[in-house]
């Protein structure tokens, strides 16, 4: 999934099999490349928002192939002391992250299932890199919809929240079938053949991930509508299938 995502973004860090899958999704869900771009743009806007709020530590869950606009590059441009932990379930994505991070002291990558909070929060690299007595930015961009209910994503998000101090933030984008349901279901069908099958959730359900957080204005909205920076607002709202939101732990 991480490598297909890279392909949608125009990257070449992918294999033929990833491109094949990516193209199938593109035909099932026209505009998926725009959606990927929009997701990525949102993440950067949110990241900059968090940096403005003074957050200097980031836990990027489902970081994928971080070729385009790495969190640590953006963050370290603001403050060279910023720390970033990339977590992904795909060993190749993690290996690639390690290559990129080879010369970056503040960034590390571990391979783990984000639903396995115990493992992530107790990983020595995580505990060495992040100071849990200081606010943390928890990034879950375009990833929770590949954690099925059976893996208890809501519980996982809660456990991460409980591990962080007030002033920490959560950044989430999530696929939905609130509109373009047929196309989204077709895309979901395709994802069931992959290692990370999708689970689409409604606006109300996705809001559940923010329990215990204060939703930052404008709340949980279509991904391009979250604090857009012209001329970045891509696509018509009726075309979009991703919600985005940022929450702050009070």
């Amino acid at each position, binding site marked *: 999934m991480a490598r297909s995502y890279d392909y949608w973004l125009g990257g070449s860090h992918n294999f033929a099999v990833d491109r094949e899958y990516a193209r199938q999704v593109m035909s099932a869900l026209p505009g998926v490349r725009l959606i990927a771009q929009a997701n990525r743009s949102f993440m950067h806007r949110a990241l900059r928002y968090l940096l403005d709020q003074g957050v200097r530590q980031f836990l990027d869950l489902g970081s994928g192939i971080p070729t385009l606009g790495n969190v640590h590059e953006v963050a370290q441009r603001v403050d060279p002391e910023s720390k970033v932990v990339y977590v992904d379930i795909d060993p*190749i994505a993690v290996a690639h992250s390690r290559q990129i991070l080879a010369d970056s002291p503040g960034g590390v990558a571990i391979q783990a299932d984000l639903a396995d909070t115990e493992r992530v929060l107790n990983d020595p690299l995580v505990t060495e890199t992040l100071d849990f007595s200081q606010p943390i930015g928890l990034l879950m961009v375009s990833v929770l919809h590949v954690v099925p209910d059976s893996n208890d994503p809501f519980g996982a998000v809660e456990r991460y929240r409980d591990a962080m101090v007030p002033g920490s933030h959560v950044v989430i984008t999530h696929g939905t079938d609130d509109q373009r349901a047929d196309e989204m279901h077709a895309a979901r069908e395709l994802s069931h053949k992959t290692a990370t099958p999708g689970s689409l959730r409604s606006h109300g359900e996705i809001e559940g991930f923010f329990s215990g957080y204060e939703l930052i204005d404008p709340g949980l909205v279509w991904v391009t509508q979250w604090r857009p920076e012209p001329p970045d607002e891509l696509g018509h709202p009726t075309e979009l299938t991703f919600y985005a939101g940022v929450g702050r732990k009070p």
Partner: protein
Amino acid sequence: MSVTTFVDAWLRALRGTVYVPITPAEQRELLTGLTRRMAETLTADRFDAFPGYEVGVDLVKHEFATPETLGRTITVMRTQLPTLVPSLADSRLTELIEALTTGFAVAMNDRSLDGQEAVRMAALSARDRAEQALRDSEARFRHFATHDQLTGLPNRTRFIERLAEVAGDDVQLAVCSIDVDRFRTINDSLGHDIGDQVLKIAADRLRQMAVGYSSASCEVFRLDRDEFTLLLTGISTPEEAGKMADLALSLLAEPFLVDDSELPITASAGVMETITTRVEPGEILRSAEIALHWAKADGQGRWRLFEPTRSAADAAKYRLSAAMPAALRRGEFTLAFQPLVNLTDGRLAGVEALARWNHPARGILAAGKFIGLAEDTGLVVAMDDYLLEQACRQAERWIHMSSEPPYVGVNLAARQLHRTGLVGYVAQVLTSTGLPPENLQLEITEHAVIGTDEQAVDTLTQLARLGVRIAIDDFGTGYSNLACLGGLPLHALKLDGAFARNETSRPTTVDREFVATLVKVGHTLDLQVIAEGIETLRQARRMRDAGCDLGQGWLFGAAGPAEDIDRQVQQGRSCLLGPAARPEAYRPEPYPVA
């Protein structure tokens, strides 16, 4: 048209074609710079399209790197640049577009190749990592499977592997099996926590010993609960193994400090020393463990070297002992009868019933071959019971054959004296067979009555009250407490065969008087004195002269079937006329030890 207007148009055209990881303001700044360079190129006096190439490369470098980006950019250049740059020569624009397209394509190609290389490297590295993780977990699993969790020492599995590894070469090696003495008692009385600590300390001492052992390579394993094993390779002399065992046992004999108290502990060891190619690896450990067993049996706190001959004898004994219960069920145990003859008149006075094992493979075995084993296993009680009944049944037959029927002597194992049900059982057998009690003589070895305790005396007394005769067997060999003898309800003393045999060589006066004294002791206590092991007439005469009442031995007949006795009972005298009539033809054979 201003540069700003051109950049606006360019940015608009690029919307939705690409995601770039910089802010809109930064994008504008970048495109503004590129626009200026293109404008300068187009308006230069001497036209050179190369900066267009660089613009194409820069676009890709800043992630404006999709095919659509290029298409839209060409359109914007074609439609807007002529407005931005007045009187623009079409050929210049074409050349600029060509240069930009080339630069863009070259950069895209490099970018793709770099990306592909990076992702392949990542895949390789991920695979390496996965393989390493697998190897690590295999190594962990292997360590877990080949090491003991409590002490961290390699375990039995590892020991067998190591033995197989070294066994391939023709090397001299030694295996030393060490076992903490009475470890079960430590566990039972002090608890398993203490027991575990003892094992840990023992393991540490042995481990340190092995590290410091310089004259050979020594490895320590924990094979079982409290069993440690040392594997010694590269030894030059057979004494090496013994030295190691000495050292190990002395280290373990140091007090164990556990929970602020000192535990006195000893250990035993068995050593097997061999050239590897001569013995199967499995046999080596087994041999060491057998030797360990010997060390335990010899009193613990010591070590024993494995000896193949001793082991073979042990094994044969073990097989015999294991076959006994079935043999008893199948009725393979029978009796042989040997006459007890009045030395004065040659009349048959009694008959001793001797146990025999009619072994299906080994033929008829004398009691000496198996009674000891039966006593070790406890089977002797069941065997005695069975044989007692057979003997009484036989003796009862003789009552009907003669006016002076012989009594029957039956051996009783020492442990029977401590058996509560014995008296009742004897009484029951007498009743069921109809044998008068005075016709039964129970024979107990002298060893059994040494230091006789109250229960044994009580049993003897009750048996005597039944009217049964009681005799001391093998008298004179066991340093009897004569004072104690007087207090026992006895009827007869059986002088050990050694006294009769002594007479065959050149008896001294002392010997003769010694026998006479023993007989006198018996007579003083009002006991019948029976001389065992009489093989010649000469011996018979001497024992008679010494005062013995009855004689028993090859001279009067070997132990044989009941029918032989039947004849003598009918005649009322022994078959003295047999071998005794021609003593020179009679070749004494070793007297069977009862």
